[in-house]
């Protein structure tokens, strides 16, 4: 009888022994890497008044909403970093991070499409820059990279040093 075997068998990609040993460490590396990125992004957005200005530069949101996001976005980034670092709800924190990156990319593309010349404000800064100083391509490529890290974690959430494990998730 191998019904039990087939119902609980891991997907094919997890079957090779090397992958099974390497993947958790890769996931851990992605968790730490992404957390460092998020913390850097959050801290460099201080003080919030400048972060608000960076959001306003996108010219997409009403003043009050821009202000709220200017204040809370760095905190949200910080919270995601904490979850990734301690490994709590790893898959979902990583998926949320990837979604956030996609929202960022959409924002940058929209600024680009409307011919704005702004700094993305990804790591502090933000606001108007000279047209020849825009770095939209770089910012988008960077965010795609971060989104990929998040996607890797979301697909393969199993990793050492994660609170999820004693709680019974992604063992």
């Amino acid at each position, binding site marked *: 009888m191998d019904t039990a075997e087939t119902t609980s068998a891991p997907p094919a990609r997890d079957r090779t022994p090397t992958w099974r040993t390497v993947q958790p460490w890769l996931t851990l590396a992605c968790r730490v890497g992404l957390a460092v990125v998020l913390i850097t992004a959050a801290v460099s957005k201080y*003080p919030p008044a*400048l972060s608000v200005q960076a959001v306003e530069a996108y010219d997409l949101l009403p003043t009050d909403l821009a202000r709220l996001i200017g204040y809370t976005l760095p905190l949200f980034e910080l919270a995601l970093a904490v979850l990734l670092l301690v490994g709590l709800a790893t898959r979902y924190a990583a998926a949320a991070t990837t979604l956030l990156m996609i929202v960022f990319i959409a924002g940058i593309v929209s600024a680009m499409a409307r011919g704005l010349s702004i700094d993305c404000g990804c790591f502090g800064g933000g606001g108007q820059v000279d047209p020849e100083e825009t770095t939209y391509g770089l910012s988008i490529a960077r965010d795609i990279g971060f989104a990929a890290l998040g996607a890797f974690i979301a697909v393969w959430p199993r990793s050492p040093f994660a609170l999820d494990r004693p709680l019974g998730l992604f063992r």
Partner: protein
Amino acid sequence: MGSAARQRSRERLKEQREKDKRKASRMRTLAVVGAAAGVVVLIVGIGYAVLNSDRSGSEFDGALAPQVVQDDGSVVMAQSGVQAPVVEVYADYQCPACRQFELLNGDVLKETAASGEAIVHFRPVSIFAQQPVPISSNSLRAGAAARAAADHGVFVEFNDLLFANQPTEGAAGFTTDELKEWFGETGASEEAAAAFGERVDSEAAVVTQFTEDYLPALTEDAVEQIGQENLSTMVLSDLLAWGAEHGHDPSFLDGTYTGEIIDATGTAYTRYSGDNAFRATPSVYINGELLDNSTAMTVRGLNGAIEDASAGEVQTEPLADAGGAE
């Protein structure tokens, strides 16, 4: 038959066990995701409360300290004869970060000036004067209008209105009609409003001439004769001085508030040196020391810096005929 029935019941049991296991696992996932969501709410909530804690009750609606126009067009807001740190604020009306500074710390300036804890020295500049129209023209028109409002003793009120209504960078705005309307909101007399309106119209004409005819022609010549490289190191007032000697007479700016704010901007670049050098707006100085962003751009930071500073000297003289409407 019996064995088949046993087999079926075994399978049912197993199915049930699987179902229970799946359910337990779903519950575990849900609990963990819930805990994670709780962590996010906690961090964002507490962080937001902390970041805003210094703002609560900082709304200032008392009487403003007296405002005195200075000989360079800047404005000092302070109780008369008070000994206090001098807080200099350099801002461009088209600069979004200046707007954020004003929205955040405008009340701190008013409050500390009213209570005699600070001498607030507003120094409007136009760092955008060489940007493309309408960024340059918005910046200059607003700067000139603020100076005109100062003639009627309502600089601070008008300054607030300009920042509250700042056009998006690159969009047209600060039209003469808008400027006049906002001036009316400061509670100025009809007589003052007429004088202000006249001044704003004439300044707007100067701004148009400057940004659309004079400066493009001057820049083109300067690029040809001294090169883009050298040009980019020159502040606007130096460029105007060069123009005066090379067939671009800037005398139409004489006596205008537009010319005055261009001069004030050029002077700002030479007023401080080293770490205190004026580079961008907003720049906030206390007794000549440049504040960093986390000090100037937080309520707690600015309040603390004012509290810690000793009394200073205002570096300008009041305008000779300051006070009355012209």
